[in-house]
């Protein structure tokens, strides 16, 4: 953290090229957060890049009491949310994707279907819930960090992850029932 703070100090002092190091350290998580919200790789990449630019522009305002990563991921989360609001109609519905995927190889059809149904159920969760569930299962973030990123209380995160998981199970059950009826 001290290392990161000194790096930030040098960037603020004018060594802009050092920002590449911060980008390389955090791009994976920032991109994953944006991807979980937007569910579209090109959009997520653009949002993550935008988040890094915003973070750079506000680096001098960064409060050192928090971790840089948490601060950055919060920016990535908010940027992804605003991207989603802006281009809600452009997104491809998950229902449209089904037809193409069904025609692919027969070998792992059942496994692929299950994965697809879970992704479908996940997409029905709210953005914050979906991200909280994903970050929680990654086991890389503490509840406090997830709370800081998503703008919730730590206890709320705990409750919402628990409820989201149950809601996912219900959604999956109803999707599977609908699928069974169409067969």
């Amino acid at each position, binding site marked *: 953290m001290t290392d990161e703070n000194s790096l930030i100090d040098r960037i603020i002092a004018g060594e802009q090229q050092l920002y590449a190091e911060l980008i390389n350290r955090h791009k*994976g998580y920032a*991109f994953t957060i944006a991807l979980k919200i937007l569910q579209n790789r090109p959009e997520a990449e653009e949002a993550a890049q935008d988040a890094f630019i915003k973070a750079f522009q506000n680096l001098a305002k960064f409060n050192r009491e928090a971790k840089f990563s948490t601060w950055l991921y919060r920016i990535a989360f908010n940027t992804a949310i605003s991207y989603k609001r802006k281009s809600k109609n452009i997104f491809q519905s998950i229902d449209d994707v089904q037809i193409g995927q069904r025609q692919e190889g027969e070998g792992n059809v059942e496994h692929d279907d299950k994965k697809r149904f879970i992704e479908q159920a996940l997409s029905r969760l709210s953005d914050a819930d979906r991200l909280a569930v994903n970050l929680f299962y990654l086991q890389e973030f503490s509840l406090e960090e997830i709370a800081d990123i998503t703008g919730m209380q730590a206890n709320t995160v705990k409750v919402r992850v628990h409820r989201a*998981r149950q809601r996912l199970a219900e959604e999956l059950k109803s999707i599977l029932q609908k699928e069974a009826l169409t067969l």
Partner: protein
Amino acid sequence: MNEENEALKKFTGNPGNEGEELNAIDRYLKTVRIEQPSVNFTQHVMSNLHRASATALGLPSRNKILMLAGILVTIGIAILLLAGGAFDSVTAITVDQDILPNNQIREYIPTIPFNGKLVINIVILMNLALAFIILDRAVLKPWFERRRHA
């Protein structure tokens, strides 16, 4: 982090009662990994960074310049009027007795001493202070920032 692992175990450890769906969800979510962006991600951000900082340090906003011009014009007009003696005769606020019927007002209404020149001078000074603040924020600060980064 241990607390989270415990919590995760609590959520996922006894899936038997919660059904096949929960099992499937847990299995899927445990396979979720960090996604990686394209290889030129960092390069892309770095090149846009220079463009972004150039925009941030660019010309002062048009609105601020217009506001500054407006304040300066107001000050100029006020000084001209003041020099022409437009406020010399304004010395007190009086309620015109012709407007108010005498039968309704029995008591004498006092006139309020009022120095028009002084008030206009204060207004000019406040406008000058505002103009200096806007000049600093809209012109001087961006200009020095640009010089520092040049």
